[in-house]
């Protein structure tokens, strides 16, 4: 039987959650016995070419590309997991949600104390993903099946959840593994 496939992505996140996944140390060897990584920054596979059992989502949605990638994951994965506080509630990037987007851009590119920008331009190349008005938690964009909080979630949290799902057991994490920081 072919191994179930797992896809991962980092949307508006810092890759800390992916680091935490790698932090399972030598259990990564057990993991690759259980699964095969599909589309993921870990192996640089860019496109879905097969159905995946699990999609791990790091980061919330701050631009239109994040939304498209997330929708693509929903279409191609049986189970989607929000991994980390950014996927769950927007995280640090969501701190901009109380500030109008125009002000954020002006602070970043024009008025910030360390800005050097003689042309006074705010980047607007069509190649650059368009920023959304606010950062959205993933479950406000598509249906999310499981949430693993933490900034990042401990490696054990990710490991336990993956093993439970891959062995058809309920994801019933102990007190110590559900933490928000």
């Amino acid at each position, binding site marked *: 039987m072919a191994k179930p496939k797992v896809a991962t992505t980092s949307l508006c996140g810092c890759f800390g959650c992916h680091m935490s996944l790698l932090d399972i140390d030598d259990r990564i060897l057990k993991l690759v016995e259980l699964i095969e990584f599909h589309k993921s920054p870990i192996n640089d596979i860019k496109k879905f070419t097969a159905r995946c059992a699990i999609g791990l989502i790091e980061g919330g949605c701050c631009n239109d590309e994040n939304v498209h990638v997330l929708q693509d994951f929903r279409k191609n994965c049986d189970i989607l997991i929000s991994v980390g506080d950014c996927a769950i509630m927007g995280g640090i990037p969501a701190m901009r949600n109380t500030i109008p987007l125009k002000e954020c851009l002006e602070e970043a590119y024009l008025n910030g104390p360390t800005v050097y920008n003689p042309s006074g331009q705010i980047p607007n190349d069509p190649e650059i993903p368009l920023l959304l008005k606010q950062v959205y938690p993933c479950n406000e964009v598509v249906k999310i099946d499981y949430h693993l909080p933490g900034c990042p979630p401990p490696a054990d949290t990710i490991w336990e959840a993956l093993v439970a799902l891959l062995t058809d057991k309920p994801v019933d994490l102990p007190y*110590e593994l559900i933490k928000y*920081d």
Partner: protein
Amino acid sequence: MSNTITFMIDGVEIEGKPGQTIMQAADEAGIYIPRLCAFKGLSPYGACRVCTVMVNGRPQAACTQPVAPGTVVENDTERLQHLRGNIVEMMFVEGNHYCMFCEKSGNCELQAMAYRFGIAAPKYPYLFPERDVDASHPDILIDRNRCILCGRCIRASSDLDGKNVFQFVGRGKDKQIAVNAEARLADTDIDVTDQAVSSCPVGAILKKRVGYAVPIGERLYDHKPIGSDIEAARTAGS
């Protein structure tokens, strides 16, 4: 003795004293009823409703409801825990709770309550309200993003510190904690040693220059759920 009031919590006979609330009697019996606005030494307030129990089939706040002979109280039922969890989830989406950089994380009662209820993520949409920070005071700061409107600081200031530093202003979603001065906390007579400062269950009122004093793994709620101390009294006592 005629001075005891006998009633039931989840099928267990409890002996309370006249004038006690259900929560006080339960605490003494080693039964934990979840709570956020109730605080030892402060008058009951009934603001958060996390302590909701069923008294003879009707929802009541255990922190304000007096004990009465023969009443039947439900506390640890699936339905009540679910409703309490929903209240906690609402508190998370109504404010801006960035646990990842909050100095109170690990010692925060709101966060601990969510852990106790096994909440991985709130199911409600986040509101991202605009709230301000008052860092005017040299030793204390107010971060209204984290305030859950429990009123503990208000009561601690008036009942324990003999001052009147805090009050609520506004109604509904605009309700917020305000200071009793023209504008800023610096203009009040608050002192860093006031009980009002240490009474805040979340990171809304913080002492400055404390930072992340206790390492992860050694904080109040890292290993044991909130309420464990009360429950421990029961297993040890009887």
